[in-house]
């Protein structure tokens, strides 16, 4: 995995100078899902891949896009659009953000993957109570990034499908 971590790690390194000694601010990889800016903790990310050949899995939960081969390991791909109840992707290819949970690899399919940002915990706002219940379940809070709002995704919860 090391080589592929390099791209992410590079981004991480660029972000690090901003990190205070308190280290209360985690670094997040930003991604866009149907126009919505989201963030996942960069430490949870094992790989970022471009478009991949994905094998569909019949009878799987709808959020499961299929599985793909990452250097001999089988990765289950989760379509974030479906997971978040957003309309399906019409054009373009998805980026894979590979995360690990209980020794299993999962790929979160996003429309695009952006930079790595340090986001201080003190700047984080809790989920607004009016947030869609589905999103309440998977979001850990909201950050204001200039014009935009970034939703922090709780990877554990995102992967808790059918549980």
């Amino acid at each position, binding site marked *: 995995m090391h080589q592929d971590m390099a791209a992410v790690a590079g981004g991480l390194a660029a972000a690090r100078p901003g990190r205070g000694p308190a280290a209360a601010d985690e670094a997040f990889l930003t991604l866009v899902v149907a126009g919505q800016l989201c963030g996942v903790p960069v430490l949870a990310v094992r790989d970022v891949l471009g478009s991949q*050949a994905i094998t569909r*899995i019949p009878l799987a939960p709808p959020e*499961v896009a299929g599985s793909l081969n990452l250097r001999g390991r*089988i990765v*289950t791909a989760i379509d974030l659009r479906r997971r978040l109840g957003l309309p399906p992707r019409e054009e373009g290819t998805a980026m894979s953000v590979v995360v690990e949970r*209980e020794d299993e690899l999962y790929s979160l399919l996003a429309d695009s993957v952006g930079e790595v940002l340090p986001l201080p915990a003190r700047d984080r706002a809790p989920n607004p109570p009016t947030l869609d219940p589905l999103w309440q379940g998977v979001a850990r809070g909201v950050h204001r990034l200039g014009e935009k709002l970034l939703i922090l995704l709780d990877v554990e919860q995102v992967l808790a499908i059918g549980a």
Partner: protein
Amino acid sequence: MDDLLADFLTETNEGLLALDAALVRLERAPQGAATLSEVFRIVHTIKGTCGFLGLTRLERVAHAAENVLGRYRDGTLPVTQGGISLILAALDAIRGIVAGLEATGQEPAGEDAPLIARLDAEAEGQAPPAALAPPSAPSPAAAPEPDPVPAAPGGASPPQTIRVSVEVLEDLMMLVSELVLTRNQLLQLARAREDSAFAVPLQRLSHITTDLQEGVMKTRMQPIGHAWAKLPRLVRDLGLELGKKIALEMRGAETELDRQVLELIKDPLTHMVRNSGDHGLERPEERLLAGKPETGRITLDARHEGGHIVIEIGDDGRGLNAERIRQKVLAQGLATEAELAGMSEREIHRFIFRPGFSTAAAVTAVSGRGVGMDVVKTNMERIGGTIDIRSREGRGTSFVIKIPLTLAIVSALIVEAGGERFAIPQIGVVELVRVGSEGAAQIEHIKDAPVLRLRDRLLPLVDLAGLLRLRPAAGAGSGFVVVTQVGAHVLGIIVDRVFDTEEIVVKPVAPILRHVTMFGGNTILGDGSVIMILDPNGIARATGLGADAAEAEAEREAVPQAGATSEAGTALLLFRAGDATPKAVPLGLVARLEDVEAGRIEQVGGRPLVQYRGRLMPLLPLSGHWDPALAPPRQPVLVFGDGERSMGVMVDEILDVVEARLTIDPAGERPGYLGSAVVAGRVTELLDTAWWLREAGEDWFGGAARTGSGRRVLLVEDSAFFRNLVVPALSAAGYAVTAVPDAAEALRLRDGGQGFDAILSDITMPGMDGFAFARALRQEGPWRDLPLIALTSRGAPEDIERGRSAGFTDYVAKFDRAALLESLAQCLAAPVLA
């Protein structure tokens, strides 16, 4: 060299290496408490283990060294350079002995007394004997000079085994998988260009890669005997402790399984063996009273079975006491009296797997196990296994564990359905049939159920694309049927295309997909794509066919035994004839389905006939009479056949093929029907095939078929349905048949002095099963030498083998009337000839 010794040597060599380094550190920092403890611990371990292995020489040296180290550790003796040198000398002595052990498997001869004396002197704080270097000796290298150990013969051989962390193996495994994929890609590229100079080296690379892959695979497999190694000792101690005589038999110890699985089943296995000894077996005096040998037997049996490992843990003890369990179930409120009344004995036995039904007190003290069986069951299920119980009061109990080989290379057939590719493990594939295209077999539909006529058999089919809810292929119409054997059932899977076979590595699916039981795993193909592996068992379950014998039985137990219940599910052909009540006949009895043009039906002497395959086949109207004027243009006919003869039954409409468990209510009985049952939610009449066959004509069973000539045959069969099928068929063939519902009843007949010429017995029966019945018959009594034919729907080779070893003379499939008659005739003829 035995495994234990090899492990010890590996471990000791590692310890010695660590000791060298630690002692040198200790010398530099004599007050390093942590280092001291570490050194002490290692020496202590070596001493302890060699005591266990009976290596006396090694033990004495290690013990003397340990004494010195113990005092260093306690601070009662200052660490000196001389002391350390002495310890190093002791280590060299140990090393010498270990080298000898490695070379010969035995401790080499040698004299350690001077070294031990010096160590003892050091331990007592006395000045070291003059022979030693003074404490202030500048070079510790001088110390080991008095080497008391003679060079081991053959010198120090390298260790037989090395220990490698599982992580390294996993990484290797992953790299090899990568290599295999790359190799396959290269091969594909090379195939495209003919003149490639790479062809030959590539071929070699390919072979080496395959060997490497197999080698790495092997590193993960371990014989199950490893998990059993401690059991003989455990059983021995248990026997002493409990005052019981116990013999432990282990079979199939060499059966290999993935080490991960091995680790996970180790504790449950130990637990169950302990339970068998503790609660299953009786005391010697009780056993003698019960007419059993004084020594109780615990058997462990492991074998591979279709991608699974089956482990059986059995004892010949007192068995489970269903009555006690029943009482406890009631006391704990786990079921009501009414529910219990409807349960079979095995169903009641299964309560011991319920959580909370554990804690010895009520159950184990009197009747059987119960301690933590729920935990065992949970552990087995966690690794995708199943556990089942078989117990006969007074005869013993056995647990059957079935666990998957999580990591195994299997050969798989790659198929395509609905535009997606899937792998089907070759092990279950019986044959491939091309269908749909010109000249090939055609898939037919009975209502919506697809079937295929394959060599005069109707094969139930399942459409893979439909089952997996995939879009059917555009050019549907031609494809393949993959005929698979699932337990006793044969099932055809319809696919669009069949590609190659490929060796695949089964990888478990992600946890979030585990509920999709149609898949047994997934894998990566040579072209790098991920593919799902189909589990024929899961497909059979999804289509309603009994998955395997054990599970089919479990399902069957879930049905209250109000009436006669047929074994597992039966595929039934539903049709309509005469009135509106649907009628059913077991699909297995029907040879073919035909659509006969009305014009082809002739009448001879008022009976309809049709020319069929060059012969005249009688046609029977189920509705009572047949009027050519009212007949439909195409007449659906069920063809029943037996070798050269066949008979057609005319019906109005064929409705469906369903899988159903039959609970037959004989109340509504009328000629030609066995009774009625609820099938697919409707009251359905069951056709009495034998009755209709008789109707077909007096001579139908005449001639050669009338072989019975009044011989007496006993039929032991729990299901009224099958009794009603078999009895008329045999009576028609001239046998005098007595039918009883269970083995106990049969034994009562025997003990009552009844005589028979042959016995037919079902295998799966409540209470005593067919195997036990056969053993009981063969053991003693007037029926000892009677021909004994197993009548069963379980036709797997291992079942047949098991049947034969239990004492059955022959094994016949339940529906195969011709085979049954032939077998009977043969069995009865043999003693006459002999």
